[in-house]
Structures are given as C-alpha cells and as structure tokens.
C-alpha cells in the first residue's frame, strides 16, 4: 500500500511537470506546425529567473518568470519564427535549434557554468495516506495540473479557445471568421512556451541549475506530444500521463539505465502499432460539451 502511494505520488509529480511541457509543446506544434526544440531551454530560462531574482518573494518571482517568458517568446516569434512558417517544419525546427544554442550560451555567459540552486519556499513534508512527502513537491504537482486544467478549460470552453481550435483546424476558414491569424499564432506560441517557462520556474527548487538543464526535458515532452493524435490539444496531457506512468513504473522496478532502454523500446513498439498516434476517448466529451457552448 505504502509503495503504491509513493508510486502514485511520483507519477503525479512527473505528470504535472510533463503535462505543462507537453501541452505547451503540443499547442505550438498543432497550431504553428513548429517543432520547438528550444522548449527545454525555456524551462531553463524559467529556472534561472527564479535563481537570479532570489530577493523577490517566491510567488511574485513566479509571476515575473511568466512575464519574462511572455516577453521572450513574443520576441522570438516576432524576430525569428514569423518569416519562417511558410518554409515548413524543417526551417522552423532548425531556427528553434539555433535559438536553443543562443539561450544556453547567454545563460552561461550571465550565470556561469557552476551549478546553481533555488532554495525551497516551503519546507517540511506532509502525510499522504501514511507516506511522508515533501510539501513543496506536492504543491508543485497540484499547481501544475491546475494550470494545465485551466489552459484546457479556456481552450475548450471559451470563445477564445474556440477561435484557437478553429484556426488549428483550418487557418483560412478562421481568417474568414475574423480571427487574425497573426495574433492567434503569436499568442499561441507565447502561451505554449510560457508554460515551459512556468514549469521551469515551479520546479526550480528541485533542480540543479546549469545552462544545459533543459536538454533532458525535450525528449519526454516530445514523446508525450507525438504519441497522441497530431493537433489534439488535450492529447499531450494524456501523453504526459502515459510517459510519466511508464517512466516511473520502469524506474521503480528496473535499474535506471535498463529503464531508459526499455522506455525507448516501449515507445518504438507503441508507434509501430499505432503509427498515426494514439487517439483518446477522453477528450471527446470535452469537445462535445464545448460544441454545446458554441
């Protein structure tokens, strides 16, 4: 029982983190067709903002990190991406790769290569069904999932979200409906990447901060997005749950290195069986209810 609770908590924490990343990555991929390989670097940016402004109260710092994320992503969209959409996936992928290098190197120039850390804002631990668990970790998981839930709610239950989904389904049609594609695109990119910045900021106290910090997060987020039907918005969250479950399960019962290998093998099998991405029942009730609203 205890080990089950521990396992559940591990999955919950990882799920919260990956869901923030994957939903953002998925939004950008679905709406813009951009494979944002700099997504991990935005996580790093979030973490370093938390480190750099350590005099500011934690919650305010989170808000500042979100602000930095918005400004940075809008800037990146405006200066780099905007001219590249028409050139296809490869061009934007390579551009984002270049951006990732730049972000990493700027972080190194500013903060140096020595690992840094952010102190925990909340100390102590709580009792969850007989298992002692760090309060902050639990808090982060809950906050992350609430944010993901809120984002999905906005997308599926509001007219803004409807517009967004419309422009994903059919950009030309959306333009006819009076949705400025340019604003929609910039907004989506900003929201998607800012989710990553937020993920980095929230998790910064559990991470060792180095400029190369983000690289490790790209693959799991990428897997979560690509496992599900392309263009699906809630799908990546489900994918994130799957990735979190799979990797926690493997890491609990195998040695770390074997777990990694089995994880990749499982992915390959999954993709071989369902090459067009898994499609999930879960989002369908969400979509249906939004149709009523619309």
């Amino acid at each position, binding site marked *: 029982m205890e080990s089950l609770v*521990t396992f559940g908590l591990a999955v919950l924490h990882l799920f919260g983190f990956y869901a923030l990343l994957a939903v953002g990555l998925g939004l950008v991929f679905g709406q813009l067709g951009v494979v944002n390989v700099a997504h991990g670097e935005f996580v790093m940016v979030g973490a370093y903002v938390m480190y750099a402004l350590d005099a500011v109260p934690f919650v305010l710092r989170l808000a500042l990190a979100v602000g930095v994320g918005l400004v940075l992503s809008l800037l990146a969209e405006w200066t780099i991406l905007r001219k590249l959409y028409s050139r296809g996936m490869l061009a934007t992928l390579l551009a984002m790769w270049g951006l990732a290098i730049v972000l990493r190197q700027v972080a*190194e120039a500013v903060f*140096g290569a020595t*690992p840094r850390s952010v102190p925990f804002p909340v100390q102590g631990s709580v009792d969850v069904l007989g298992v002692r668990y760090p309060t902050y970790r639990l808090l982060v998981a809950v906050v992350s999932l609430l944010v993901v839930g809120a984002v999905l709610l906005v997308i599926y239950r509001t007219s803004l979200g409807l517009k967004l989904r419309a422009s994903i389904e059919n950009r030309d049609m959306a333009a006819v409906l009076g949705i400025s594609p340019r604003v929609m695109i910039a907004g989506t990119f900003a929201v998607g990447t800012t989710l990553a910045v937020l993920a980095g900021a929230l998790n910064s106290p559990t991470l*060792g901060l*180095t400029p190369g910090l983000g690289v*490790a997060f790209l693959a799991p987020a990428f897997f979560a997005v690509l496992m599900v039907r392309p263009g699906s918005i809630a799908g990546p969250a489900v994918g994130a749950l799957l990735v979190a479950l799979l990797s926690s399960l493997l890491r609990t019962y195998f040695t770390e*290195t074997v777990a990694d290998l089995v994880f990749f093998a499982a992915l390959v099998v999954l993709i071989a069986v369902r090459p067009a991405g898994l499609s999930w029942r879960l989002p369908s009730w969400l979509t249906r209810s939004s149709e009523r609203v619309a």
Partner: protein
Amino acid sequence: MVDQKLRARRLTRVGGPVAAGLAVLLALSACGGSIGGGSDGGDGGSGDPGPLKIGMLAPITGPAAPEGIALQRGFDLAIEHINDDGGVFGQPVEVVFIDDQADPATATQAAQRLVQQEEVDYIFGTITDDTTIAAATVADQAGVPMSQAIATALDYCSPHFWPFGETPTQLLTDLVPRMVEEFGGNVALVGNDYVFPRTYHEVSTQLIEEAGGTVVAEEYSPLGTSDWQPIITRLQGAEPDWILSAVVGGDAVSFVQQADQFGLLEGRGLTGVSVDQQFYPALAPQLEGRSQVVRYTDQLDSELNATFVEAYREAYDTQEPIPGVAGNAYDGMRFIAEAFEQAGSTDAEAVSEQIAEMEFEGLGGPVGFDPDNHVVQAPMYLTSIEAGSPYAVVEELGVVTDEQEKDCA
C-alpha cells in the same frame, strides 16, 4: 551556339563541388605541406632548448565546463607565476589553449593539432576520462608527455603520462572508516552511470567491507537525471546510516536537494564527490557540517596557498570555495615546469625521468609520483564543511599510497 551554351553550363556545374572543395582548402591553407618540406613531429630536444611550449586542453564549454573552467584558472595562474619568476630555460613559457568541449572527437583533433602543428613539449589538461584517453593516446603516439589534474579512475597509463588527479583509493581510504565509525556500517552508494562513479564505488565497497560495514544499496542513474525520486525512495527503503555519492555536475545539486526534501539526509551522513567544493555555492545548507577528504582546499595553512588563494580570488573575482582541480592544476603545472628546468631539455625521456624521481613543494605539501604506476603522491586532508570557512582542515592525513597495478612501461 548551342555547344557554347552547353559548355558554359558545364562549367558552372563543375563550379559546385570544386568551389566547395576550394573553400574548405582555403579555410585550412597554410604554407608548406604534409608531404615534402617542413619538419614532422616534435623537435627532439637536441641542442639548445627553445621556449617551453605547453598545450592546454580544457572543456570550458559543454557539460564539464565548471570543472574545465576551474582547471583553466589554476593552470593560468601557475603559468603567470612561473613566468613572473623568470619562466623556464630563462624564457617565458608559451601556452596554446584549446577547448576540448568534453568531447573525445574534439579532444583527439585538439591533441593532434597540439603535437603536429603547434609542436608542444607537453600537454596538460582535459577533465572527463574519455577525452583524457583520447588526448593521451595521441600524445603517446607522438611521444609527447601529458598530465591531467582532476580526480580520476583511469587505468590508462603510458611512459610519459603523469596524472595529478586523486585516485578513488586516495579519496576514500581515510574517509570510509571514519564515516563508518561516526554514522554506522550500513552504507548506500549512489552515482551517475559512467566509468568513474562505478570504479569509485568498487573501491568504496571494498573499503566499507574492510571497515566492517555493508553496502545496503547501490544505485546509478544516467547523466542528466533531474528526477531522483525513484532512487531516493529505494535508498530510503534500504535505511542506510550514511550515503556515499558519486553524482556529479548539475545532477549532484538536484540529487542532494531532492534527497533533503524527502528527508533522506535527516540524521544520516553524506559525503563523496557530490560534496566537493564546486557544489558548495548551490548546496551550502545541505553540505554544512559534513566531512570530506581532499588534496586541495583553499583553507590550507601555507604561505604558498595564501598567495595562490589571494591571486585566484582577485583574478576571478570570486569568494566561493576554490575547486580542488584548480589547486591540482596549479601544483601540477608548476611541478612540470620545474621538471623541465631540472632536465634542462624538452626531451620527453629526460623530462619523464625527472618527473618520476622529483619531489616538489605544492600548495598542500610535497608532491611526487610513484615511479611504477604513476600515481601522484601528496598529502590528503580531512576537512569539515563549515559555514564561513567551508572545507576547513580538520586533520592532515599524510600521503595515501595507492598500490593499483598499471602498465606504464
């Protein structure tokens, strides 16, 4: 008419590959060639030795950058001080620096450049063991002597390879029995999954058993692991008295932070590579009060060290604990300069002979080499990580011999 057009087209078509080739060649061009003309390899050391030329390799970018930068700093200060004191052979020492990016392919190329083009007399540096092997192989083939300076589990050796890094045996021999005595015999081992932590823990396992303890858990995780919960849970389940960690880099910080959050460190000992000086800035609250065995700490009580620390703090504008690798590099480079001076030539044989028997006053005491297995011999120190004076010397442990067998002939 048509023919002319066709010819013109053909000519432009030839342009592609040939122009690409020319562009690449131009980027490389220099006078002379590999075939005919120009000297090949080192200058053999006969006659009057010219200025001493040292090739320096350090990963100042890439995953090992923190250690690489510390290495470079210690090395640069050594060169500065050597040259202030008149250099070697009466001339300033020349340095060719290359960033190996902690990548073996880059390190090979860099080492080749150092021996073939720059014709250096000695190679100093690299951090990760794979780049060290890569560079040392090139150096060995060219008959150029080489040293590294960071703690290492290398079983590589060659007649002209003189590593200044501490071996796991040197780091652990005194540490393990003390930890067993202070905290108890149940020990959990944890590390990143590559050669150094595994060798480190092979040695530690043996020492723990000799001290009457048992290894209750042993866990390895790939470099770049950010979520340590599964490992921490397993370690907690094993209920160790203390934890010996060979987790490195940013991982060390996330591991210790998360272990602290999960209460793994409560009432338990923690030591190992993860409590080294470079992690102190990030982990001060978690590390304070713990013990570590080191060769170099900026708290060493010697005049030489006081000068070095002052110069280091001034040159690099930092108040953080000075990483051990910086001290090792400072000692190592000065040691080598002295060996060249004594040998009176840049001949590799003569220098290696000198290195094998020389004794030299380093920052923490006399430094020398075991002539059989090329393990560096220098006093080790038990330190305590105290707020205000982290890594303060508690006890001088003397030279720790390491009898490991290596084929250096």
